[in-house]
């Protein structure tokens, strides 16, 4: 992957859509498990949402949910800065153009290190927001 595809702006917001119950309803915090990379590629899928309206983000989430055949449960946001601080990085991974992946995780065999980083990352994420009742509608 060329470095030009790396997202370098620390302020870039990254949205992670949640399709499993990976958040605590008690305080709406995301669980670290939601950020753990997949074993087959060791990456965590996110979307760059800097210039998107809230309605457009939910519309995107609804579209992703259809593609992934899972109901959308919520979303959390983490600044790229938090990713950089824990020693990871974000690379663009289209399509769509604003899809990206958190990369640079320790090898999957090093589960304790992966957990440790995922805990740190989860602690930097925003409170989870749940979809509005009409989130499946297209943004106006």
């Amino acid at each position, binding site marked *: 992957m060329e470095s030009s595809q790396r997202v370098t702006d620390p302020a870039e917001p990254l949205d992670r*859509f949640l*399709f*499993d*119950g*990976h958040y*605590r*309803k*008690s*305080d*709406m*915090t995301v*669980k*670290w*498990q939601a950020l*753990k*990379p*997949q*074993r*087959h590629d060791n990456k965590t*899928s996110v979307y760059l949402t800097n210039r998107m309206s809230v309605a457009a983000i939910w519309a995107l989430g609804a579209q992703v*949910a259809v593609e*992934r*055949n*899972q109901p959308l449960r919520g979303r959390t946001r983490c600044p790229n800065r938090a990713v950089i601080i824990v020693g990871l990085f974000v690379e663009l991974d289209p399509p769509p153009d604003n899809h990206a992946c958190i990369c640079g995780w320790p090898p*999957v065999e090093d*589960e*304790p*290190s992966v*957990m*440790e980083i995922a*805990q*740190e990352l*989860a*602690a930097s*994420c925003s409170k989870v927001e*749940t979809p509005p009742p009409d989130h499946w509608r297209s943004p106006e």
Partner: protein
Amino acid sequence: MNYLMNSTTVTNVTQRGSVGSGTFHALSAKRSPILLPEGSWEHALFGGLSFKYKPLQGDFLVGHWPGTTRPLNEVIAGFYDFASQWYPLDLLVWVPHTSPWILYGWSKEPLQSVSVSVTLSPASIEEPQKTIWFGWTASADAATTGIQTGIDQPAHPRQRILDALDELMARGSAANWDGYGAPPVEPLAKAGAKHFIDLLGAKLPEPEVALAPGAITFDWYINPRWIFSVSVSDDRKVHYAGLFGTDKMSGTVELTGALPEIMELGIRRAASGVVAESH
């Protein structure tokens, strides 16, 4: 237990914090939950809140961790999570009531009385250092309604964890259970998780059980920066990671016949909370 029946318009705050309204038959308890000596109650840590309950008489008390500054709406959401282990969520509604008691929930169906009460007054909201206990009571006839079987004798913590594990395995047995292409959870992971649950015993606090790609996990959680987690992906070893403020710990240990000491330390440190360590 005796209840007074009233009809009232209420505001329904769901666990997600969305607000709606409707008219229900409210049940206001004639008596308040009675606080008995500490030894008569059981304690549980759930979602970062300390719960105190006495299941044998159908009374439950739910409380802030002493010194917590968590907003009331988070406590309410935590209560819903805890109460929903015994009561269907759709039968619980939040009802402001005259001080000092606030009913928090009951069955929407007439005569099926499930009430929840809270000893929270405006003054106590102003005093975050004070331990505030919430509670609910269930009517004597609730056991015959079929709504909340087991209300008088909640499942043993170990059984609750096993039940949660079974529920997760049912969902995690299909590929893409997380929407990101996670493979089905391996049977070996379940075997390892059950072994780990057996090692926890009854004296350690109850964990949150969850799935992660390739693993079954257990969390002892106070807040995002105060958490101890265990990950089990087979029946031979367990991984752990703890975040305690700026302190971290992590590693891998063999799954043997006893809970590794380092894990017990991590669990107890997480459960003791930030407040305990600051004193």
